[in-house]
Structures are given as C-alpha cells and as structure tokens.
C-alpha cells in the first residue's frame, strides 16, 4: 500500500506538472524520511490492505534512497491502474481503498450530501463521482461483465484457440472491448481514491495550494464521469453499429400510410440532427399519400444503440385529413431497427445458391427495347422466404448490393434472435412483428401529447417530436431499461 501511494504521487506529479515544484517535493520527501523498510513483494502489499494508514504509521518504512530506486521501476508494472488491470482476478477480490481504508462503496454508503459543483466541498464531489461510478457499473451490468471477461480469458488461454481463427478473432475482440470497459471503471475508482488521498495528505501538510489543485482535479473528474454515464447506456454488443430503420404502415389505408411516412420523416430528421448519414434504401409509396413501407440506412457511431429504443408500434390519434368527415382516427406504424454488423461480423452465412434475384416491377421485352432508370432488384432468400428490395440506387448493381446488405442484416437479426432462443418465427418484414408491442402514442386531437408507454415519459409539444426531437424519449427509455433493473449491479 505504501509503495502504491508513493507511486500515486509520482504519477500524480507526472500528470500534473503544476505540482512539480521544489516545495512540494520537499514536503513529500520530508514526510518519508522516517521510513526504513522497503517491501519488494507487491502482491503481499496489496493483500496487506487492512486499512493501515500511511500517515498513522510513518515508521513503517524506507529512506530517501528508495525514492530514486522506485523511479527506476517500470511504472507500467507497479502503477496503480495498470497493476489492477493486469491482475483482473486479484482485483476482483481486493477492493481498492484510500490509505485510510475508504472504498468507493464506503463513499456511497456515507451518503454525503451532493452539492453544486461550485461548492468546494470535496466530499460532495467524491459522493457524486461515486454515484456516477455506481450507475455506470449498473449500466454495464458489472457482475455479469466480470464473469464474461473471466470466461473469455479462460477461452483465450486455451492452446487450440487459433484453430478456428474466425471464432478466435471474435473472442479476442470481445475480450478486448470488455476489458477496456472494465479497466476504465477501475481506473475511475482508483483515481477517485487517489484524489482523496491527495486531499487528505495536503491537509495533513497544510499545503493549501496542493489541496486546491486536488479538489480541482476532483471537479474535473466529476464532470467527465458524468459524461461517461451516458456512454455506458450504449454498452450493448451492437450499439456502436450503423443500422437500418424499417417503417411499415398498419391497417387503415391512406391515413395509416400517411402516418408511416410521418414516422419515417421523424427518423430522417432525427438522424440528420445527430449528424448521421441517411439513405433511403427501399420505399413503397401509398396509392394516394404516404408509404406502405420504407427502409432507411442510418450510418454513424451508435446509430443502432440509440435507434433500437424505437423498435415497436407507434400509435397516432388525430382527425384524419383523408377522411371527408374529418373524424378522429387511430393508426399504427410498426418500426423495426436492425443493426448492420459489418463485414466479418455477420452471424448468418448466406449461400449464393439460396438466393433468387429478380428485377422488381419489370415489364416488356427489356434489353435494348427499354430505356429505364428503374433498376430495382428484389432478392429472396429461398430457405427463409425473407426478401429485400432496393430501388433507390442509380444502377442495378448498386441496388443489388444494397438489397443484399438489408437481407444480410435481416438474416443476422433473425439468427441472433434464434440464438437468444427468443422467437425463431420470421415474417416478410421484421417490422410486421412489432405491431403487438405498442411503445408510444402520439395524440394530436383533442389534445396534443406524445407519451411513451414504457417509461411514461411524455411531452406536449408533439410537433417538435415529429420534427425528430426524440432524444429524450430514447435516453429515458435506455436509462429506464438499464437502471430500473433492481438487481444491484
């Protein structure tokens, strides 16, 4: 413990060059002069973690010379953060703490009042950070995460791992990603405790300047951890992927097709607002207005992570402009969101011979007889009957490529569902499946309100929602589905 605290200081110095003043070094050294023992066994040291306080037992160890020696020790091995991450098994068992034995759990349990950021009470900051860390752990499903990492590590250690390079690649990739997440949280915990140690130390030394800096660092951390809370909402396996969004009109003719196109419009605007690339892949217009169905491709980081919250049926209540008597109508649109796993990640291997590729809506003799810019293609996956069409590209080749991408994603989604032993049943369009699962209502008459049935989150400015302002719905759903989970962590 002692060593690690000392090293914390030197790493603190590295990260905060402001502190590398002679004055600070002097006070640090002077506080160490009474030490006389140098323990070489780090493993033992961390197991010694029994709340021994550095400040209480100054006589425990070592003299001036060892500071020099310590600096020569490669920091990657001994430095707090890396130490814990490279020893994940041990770390799971040993909870890090401050020199006087305060743990992150302990901070949480203290229930210190959280004040505004500008109040300089360090306990308030610490408490806020501890809460954020707790929330992040919950969102990451911490215990499951640790188990999964352990399991993957075991698999990675198997000698025959690379006999199946594809599988091995997947395992090592997932291991990398999950360990990264795990280490980040551990780093936060470590950092929080370091800051607290530093504050306590500076008080001990009456070093107000150091204390001020340490509190500043704590505030900084409070902010960045707060931001991480949001990121942790999107920790699902495919959350970072791009995606397809499919909208399908329910029964009810033109009114319902108009509603489907309003929903699609909402997503296009939402995606544009977020800076995602949007491309219409497939669109089947209604006879009079609106769309029967449409598929768009949304490209960008976390497009799926956010959009997946929209999967389900969306209900509209309004006086229909398509009803000559202007009566009130209720209509539904089904939305399906499908991640685009990307090359090399697909779950379903499509066999060329299982495909039927057809010119969609073709007539006449074709070839030299016809000059048409319509080169829509429909691909049918014969074994499952799943089809995909694309008509918005300017060449048949590109329409085919686009339709293949949709087909691949649909089959991937089906395969994932099958693997999850959920529902192996398929239909023409995944969106059709969603009608049973009503997630949100949009009421435009007699009052105006949009309400999410899963979270009860509601707003009255329906127009703004239909203009694509749906982030609050998405975030409230994502946090509700991850945070309300009552199992701790």
């Amino acid at each position, binding site marked *: 413990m002692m060593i690690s605290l000392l090293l914390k200081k030197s790493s603190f110095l590295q990260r905060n060059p402001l502190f590398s003043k002679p004055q600070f070094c002097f006070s640090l050294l002077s506080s160490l002069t009474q030490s006389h023992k140098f323990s070489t066994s780090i493993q033992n040291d961390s197991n010694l973690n029994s709340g021994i306080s550095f400040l209480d037992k100054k006589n425990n160890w070592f003299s001036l010379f060892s500071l020099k020696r310590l600096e020569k020790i490669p920091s990657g091995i001994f430095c707090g953060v890396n130490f814990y991450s490279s020893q994940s098994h041990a770390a799971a068992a040993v909870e890090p703490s401050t020199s006087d034995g305060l743990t992150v759990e302990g901070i949480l349990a203290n229930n210190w009042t959280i004040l505004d950021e500008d109040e300089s009470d360090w306990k308030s900051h610490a408490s806020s950070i501890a809460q954020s860390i707790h929330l992040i752990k919950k969102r990451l499903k911490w215990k499951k995460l640790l188990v999964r990492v352990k399991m993957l590590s075991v698999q990675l250690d198997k000698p025959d791992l690379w006999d199946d390079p594809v599988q091995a690649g997947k395992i090592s990739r997932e291991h990398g990603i999950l360990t990264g997440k795990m280490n980040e949280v551990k780093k936060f915990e470590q950092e929080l405790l370091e800051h607290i140690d530093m504050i306590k130390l500076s008080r001990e030394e009456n070093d107000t300047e150091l204390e001020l800096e340490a509190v500043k660092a704590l505030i900084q951390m409070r902010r960045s951890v707060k931001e991480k809370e949001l990121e942790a909402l999107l920790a699902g396996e495919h959350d970072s992927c791009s995606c397809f969004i499919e909208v399908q009109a329910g029964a009810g003719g033109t009114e319902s097709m108009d509603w489907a196109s309003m929903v699609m419009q909402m997503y296009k605007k939402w995606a544009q607002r977020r800076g995602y690339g949007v491309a219409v892949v497939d669109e089947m217009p209604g006879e009079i207005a609106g769309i029967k169905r449409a598929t768009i491709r949304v490209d960008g980081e976390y497009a799926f992570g956010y959009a997946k919250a929209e999967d389900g049926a969306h209900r509209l209540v309004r006086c229909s402009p398509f009803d000559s008597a202007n009566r009130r109508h209720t209509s539904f649109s089904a939305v399906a969101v499908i991640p685009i796993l990307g090359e090399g990640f697909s779950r379903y291997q499509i066999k060329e011979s299982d495909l039927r590729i057809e010119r969609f809506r073709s007539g006449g003799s074709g070839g030299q007889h016809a000059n048409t810019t319509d080169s829509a293609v429909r691909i049918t996956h014969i074994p499952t009957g799943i089809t995909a069409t694309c008509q918005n590209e300017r*060449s048949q080749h590109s329409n085919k490529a686009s339709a293949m991408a949709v087909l691949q994603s649909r089959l991937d989604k089906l395969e994932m569902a099958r693997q999850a032993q959920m529902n192996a049943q398929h239909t023409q369009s995944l969106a059709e499946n969603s009608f049973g699962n009503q997630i949100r209502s949009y009421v435009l008459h007699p009052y105006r309100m949009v309400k999410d049935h899963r979270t009860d989150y509601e707003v009255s400015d329906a127009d703004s929602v239909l203009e694509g302002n749906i982030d609050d719905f998405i975030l409230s759903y994502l946090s509700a589905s991850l945070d309300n989970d009552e199992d701790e962590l």
Partner: protein
Amino acid sequence: MKVSFIRPSLSSIFKPILFQTLPNRPVNFSKISSPPTSLKPQTPLFLKPANYRATLSDLKKWQLWAKNLATSVGTKFLDSDNGPDSALLLRELGWLIQDAVLEGPTSLSSENNPSEVVVSLRACLVDLYLLWKQRIEERRPFQYLVGCEHWRDLVLSVEEGILIPRPETELIVDFVSDVVKENEVLREGLWADLGTGSGAIAIGIGRILGSCGRAIATDLSPIAVSVASYNVQRYSLQDKVQVKQGSWFEPLKEDEGKFAGIVSNPPYIPSEDIGGLQAEVGKHEPKLALDGGATGMNDLLHLCNGIASMLRPGGFFAFETNGEKQSKFLVDYMENESKGSFFDVKVASDFAGIKRFVTGYRAT
C-alpha cells in the same frame, strides 16, 4: 422566375443558350493518346464546375414546377409504350438535383429563409427548366439530360449518338468475372468488347482482369469511340483498355486466334420493331446501335461465324440477345453449323427471367 415563362415556343430561343453553356470539355482530354476522331465528348453534368448561382427559393420554384410536370404524366407513357410513370420521373428529378446542385439535395430542405440562401449550380436555372421540359415533352432520356449513366459501380459519360448501357448488360461483366476468377490464363489474357458504345462492358472487364490482362474495345461509330475513350480515361484504364474504330472483327485482325475472351451486345432488334419502340429509345438512341436487320440476327450471326477463329482454344464468349427465340437459335446454330468448335454453350437469363445471353467456350 415564373413557371409560365417557359413556353414551348421559347425552347427554340433557349436552345442556343443551352448549347453555349455546354461546351465544357474534359480537362484531361488532351491526354488521350491519339483520339481517332476529332469529336469532343461532353462532360457529364455532375462533373461540370458549379459556375451558376440561384436563390434557394427560385430553385424550389423550379423543383415544384418540375414535380407538377412529372406528376401530370401519371401512367400515360407507361400505358402507351412502357415508358416512365410519375413515380419514376420524380425519382429522376431527385437525381437531376443531385447532379446539378453543388450542395446536394439537403440544401433544398434548409431551414433558413430560402430567398436569402444562394445555392451553386452546375447548370443555370434556365437550362434546368429546359432540360426537364425536354425530359417530359420530348421524352429525351434522363441519362442524356445529365450526361451520364450509373452502371454497375461505374458512372459512365453518355450523350446523343451513344446507346445508354442497360442494366441487363451488367451481367455480362459478372459472367466474365466468374470465368476469370477460376482461370488465370483467361484472367491474364486479351479480351475484346465488340460494339462497345459507351465502353461500359470493356471498362467493367478492364477492372477485373489481372495485371497482364488487356481488353480491346471496338465500335463502328466515331462518337462511340470518342466517348468510350473518354470513359476509359476517366477510370485510368488507358493502359489496359484500347479503343479502336472499325466493323466487328476487322480491328482485331492482328490478334486473330489470340483472344482469351470476346463479348458483345450487338444491335439485335428486328427492323420492323424499331418503329414501335419506347419513345426514349426510338426517338433518341442511335439506330446503328439497335437495328439488327430483318430478324434482328444479322450482327449476332456475323459474330458467331467469326468468333471461333478469333478465340484461342478454351477462350470464352458471351453475347446478349433479344430473348429466348434468338438465344435458342444461336445455341442450335453454334452446335450444328460449327460442330465441335465450341463447348459448354449455354443460355443465361437476366434478372427479369428473360433468356437473354448465350455463353460458351472455344473448343480446346
């Protein structure tokens, strides 16, 4: 600009303006080794400099006018000669905007005051009115309007005098791709695309051949030769694809018997059908590219007769035909007339299920 400003009578006044604004030549044209003719291919709209400005509100007015014009068509063209319906015309309008407006279609949905927003255009607004009028009233093919056709993963320059490559024909490149994937001799060999038009097939093939593979593209039409050369240049294939002028096998004489593969989409429409073609085709595309004589088989038969001596043993061929009748006839013809010269002669269908192609190999 008022919509009513454009009247049929005015198009004759605008025409000179249009052609004054279209003389842009490809910047790199001079690099084409020795153009066999003096014809200068036109630059596709999407490659032209965005030298024109218009306010967003004026552009939107044009768009609205063009939409209405397209919508008014309904299924009229479709019913009369299998031409485009409104839905397709509206999609084309979107693509015209894509090609003509520098900032792309998103600028049209800008939330700022549209009378203050200025957009950059690759054609002036007057031309855009004129072009869309030609599309609807004269049935001028969309691809001639924008000067290009998206074909496979290529964007090919096309203009009057050149057959606009068809989606069906994309498959010929797929056939070649399948064949060369498994056969290194063919992959590294010499290929020919006879009657290359825009150069589509030859360029498609040029991009899948191995590092030693070469292709010769031929056409009788000087415009085709010049446009094909321009397209070859645009894809930096001038070292791989050589464009030659001449009738069918004639420009290939010096390489007789050396070809790893020969493909062609020759004119195959029977002469009597030419009059009843869809307006976009019959009124605008070159007869030389379409008319295959009384049965439509004149050129196909000529090609079948000469191909055995041009191909090396094991060499591959693929022809596009008018459909089942011609394909079957050709298969029989090749198997009976020139017994033993070919093997694996087959008919292949296009994506509409029409028996469109005949493929096979020269006997070894």
